[in-house]
């Protein structure tokens, strides 16, 4: 399937890679179909590209890789939206915000993680009720603390 993307122009994607966000992403509730595309820079950063709106894409990181200690606190009942009853059956992705004038001050949204059920290709944004999970955590610094044992 041909889709238009914000960063890569028109590309060909396999339809089975499409992730359905039945409730959208907060502030973009009208859009439901996304796809994860690796960034060219090969940093394990991905674009979560919206298929319904080519101009919409989020920079995301896989929490298990970059922030292995991060465990969002989400009521298991809410996960039924993704067809699972346990968070361990989901992949956790976190959205980065990178200010164009000060990219070194990039932040990661720990309060609003994206969970994806890779089997059903279903995703949703949740709110972690852990009070230490802030909405604008300094990403580079936080990643460092996560790397320590």
């Amino acid at each position, binding site marked *: 399937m041909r889709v238009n993307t914000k960063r890569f122009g028109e590309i060909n994607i396999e339809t089975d890679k499409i992730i359905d966000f039945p409730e959208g992403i907060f*502030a973009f509730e009208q859009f439901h179909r996304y796809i994860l595309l690796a960034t060219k820079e090969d940093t394990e950063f991905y674009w979560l590209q919206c298929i319904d709106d080519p101009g919409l894409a989020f920079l995301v990181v896989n929490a298990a890789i970059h922030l292995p200690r991060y465990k969002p606190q989400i009521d298991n009942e*809410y996960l039924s*939206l993704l067809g699972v009853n346990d968070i361990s059956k989901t992949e956790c992705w976190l959205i980065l915000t990178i200010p164009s004038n000060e*990219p070194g001050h990039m932040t990661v949204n720990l309060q609003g993680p994206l969970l994806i059920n890779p089997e059903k290709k279903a995703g949703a944004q949740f*709110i972690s009720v852990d009070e230490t999970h802030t909405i604008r955590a300094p990403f*580079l610094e936080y990643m460092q603390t996560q790397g320590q044992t």
Partner: protein
Amino acid sequence: MLILARKTNESIIINDNIEILIVDVKGDQVKVGIKAPRDVRVYRGEIYAEIQKENIEASKSELPKDIQNLLKKKGQNKKSPDDK
């Protein structure tokens, strides 16, 4: 928007399966009880609004060209045996 006046211990039913109960009113603070199916996600409005705002901000992000350097610079002190 529908606006209803309620007293303590009075409630509102939404869609046959969600009940909003006014538990207590003190000054400008209202305690609200919510009975809903367990998969109905209930969030405080201001947190929801904050995340909406942040998502809009995040959607404008560009990946900086020197991202590798930024990551390296920060990672200098990191002692990780399985560094890629």
